[in-house]
């Protein structure tokens, strides 16, 4: 285990920001840390990086205690804080050399690492520019280059793609995905799509507690509610089509509404039943036309909404705990 967090608690003026959380991260894992604003993501990351003490609990990174062996821990991490603080009066290369030296790199190795991160973060063309004159995207990459420069075992990235344009997000995402070969990455984000694509495992934190922890795929599988198949049909009247679709044994509920010249039909079924083939047979048997037939995919966004939403929060949480997944 590279990261081991046991019963971590952090209180600000008596109000808990992180409330008794425990989790582990294995080497070379990319773990996504999700949660609404103010859920305790940044606090947890700051504690892991040794910037802030915890109120209670144990945190170890690569076997070293974050509180009592802080220097050893700091030698092994690369930390990118949320708003990417940089010395805006320095030039990019100069800044990276400075940071590399502070992280213990010297001489030829320092030069080689600076060149390597300039290359991998796409900073070659701006290496002589003053950081203050760079765009948000480039600054973000300078911060990322800084966190990578000493080849740390653990990378802690707090919202690395916030404020970037879609192209830049894709570049950073590819970069992070490539890091998984050599580094362990803990990535905080609230861009669910990004986490779903990049991470091996997802931790969802809400109000200082971990409410879900699993691979994105398994989390989606645990969602409550029915499956929904959507079909665009032409030929019959809405009432007739709806009636025949309801006749399919596995269908719990069906609806049909005109959608231009077509009828948009939804068939709900239990989670274990797939009714799309039956829907096709009914349509074909009646000689109607079928333009579209698909199952509505549910994604991490639904999981997120379910576990962090006000009234439904407990359902999935309990089911996860019941399965021993959290």
């Amino acid at each position: 285990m590279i990261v081991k967090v046991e019963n971590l608690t952090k209180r600000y003026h008596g109000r808990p920001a992180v409330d008794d959380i425990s989790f582990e991260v294995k080497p070379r894992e990319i773990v996504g840390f999700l949660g609404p604003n103010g859920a305790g993501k940044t606090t947890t990351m700051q504690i892991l990086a040794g910037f802030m003490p915890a109120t209670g609990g144990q945190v170890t990174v690569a076997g070293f205690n974050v509180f009592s062996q802080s220097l050893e821990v700091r030698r092994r991490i690369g930390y990118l804080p949320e708003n990417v603080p940089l010395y805006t009066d320095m030039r990019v290369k100069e800044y990276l050399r400075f940071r590399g030296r502070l992280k213990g790199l010297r001489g030829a190795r320092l030069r080689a690492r600076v060149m390597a991160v300039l290359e991998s973060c796409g900073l070659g063309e701006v290496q002589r520019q003053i950081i203050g004159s760079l765009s948000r995207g480039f600054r973000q990459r300078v911060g990322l280059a800084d966190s990578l420069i000493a080849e740390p075992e653990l990378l802690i990235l707090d919202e690395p793609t916030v404020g970037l344009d879609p192209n830049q997000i894709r570049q950073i995402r590819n970069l992070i995905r490539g890091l998984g070969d050599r580094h362990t990455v803990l990535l905080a984000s609230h861009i669910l799509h990004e986490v779903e694509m990049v991470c091996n495992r997802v931790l969802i934190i809400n109000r200082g507690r971990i409410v879900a922890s699993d691979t994105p795929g398994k989390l989606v599988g645990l969602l409550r509610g029915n499956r929904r198949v959507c079909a665009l049909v032409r030929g019959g009247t809405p009432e007739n089509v709806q009636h025949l679709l309801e006749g399919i044994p596995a269908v719990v509920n069906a609806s049909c509404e005109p959608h231009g010249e077509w009828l948009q039909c939804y068939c709900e079924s239990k989670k274990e039943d797939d009714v799309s083939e039956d829907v096709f047979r009914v349509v074909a048997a009646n000689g109607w036309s079928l333009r579209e037939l698909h199952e509505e995919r549910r994604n991490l966004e639904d999981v997120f909404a379910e576990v962090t939403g006000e009234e439904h929060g407990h359902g999935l949480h309990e089911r996860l705990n019941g399965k021993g997944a959290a």
Partner: protein
Amino acid sequence: MRNFLTIWFRELSACFLSPVAYVLMVVFLAVTSATFLLDITQDAALDQPLTVTLFESILVWLTILVTVVCMRLFAEEKRSGTLETLMTVPVTEAQIVLGKYAGALSFLLLVTFPVAITLLLVVAVSPVLQLGDLDGGALLSGGLILILVSSLLVAVGLLVSLLTRNQIIAAICCFCAVWGVLLFGWIVTIISGGGFSTTYVTVTDHIRDFSRGMLDSRPLVFYILGSALFLFASVRVLESRRWR
């Protein structure tokens, strides 16, 4: 040691990366020479060595220089969040504090010493004043007290800068603290009604004595220990965020 040098170099070069350093140098030279020249022309009859006038006029403006240099030391890092990146690399608090201290102090000396030399050159080429008035020994001991006073004031300013993230508050508090240190001896004398001797801690007296050429080891100890005390306090304050 290497980390200390890295931070020192970064602090010193940071001063020259913004126009602040150059503006400070020019303004400091202007106001100090104005004060010095006014003093020697108006109080020509005053019976005091030239070196005393020189170092006293530097000291008056040194208080503002220290304030401007020190207010950003930590307040700026806290405000912009770079303290977070600085505190999460394998560098100890003592290295950070000493590196920043050395950076600020060396910048201060880089500004003040050329000014002192410039003013002496002005005096040397002036047809009115004879360079024969100058005492080489007094000049050296005056330079020494300038270094000592600067090191204490920077240590005080550094501690003040650590306590706030607002640069304006840092500047105001720093200015008050610096004058508090300068006038400490006087304040004690006034409060105690002249009850006990405060010459050991009266900075203005030390300046006068040293720039007359009166070397004394007791103020030496006072400044070194005083700077060490404030630096130690700064390291502790910076460390305290790890146990709060």
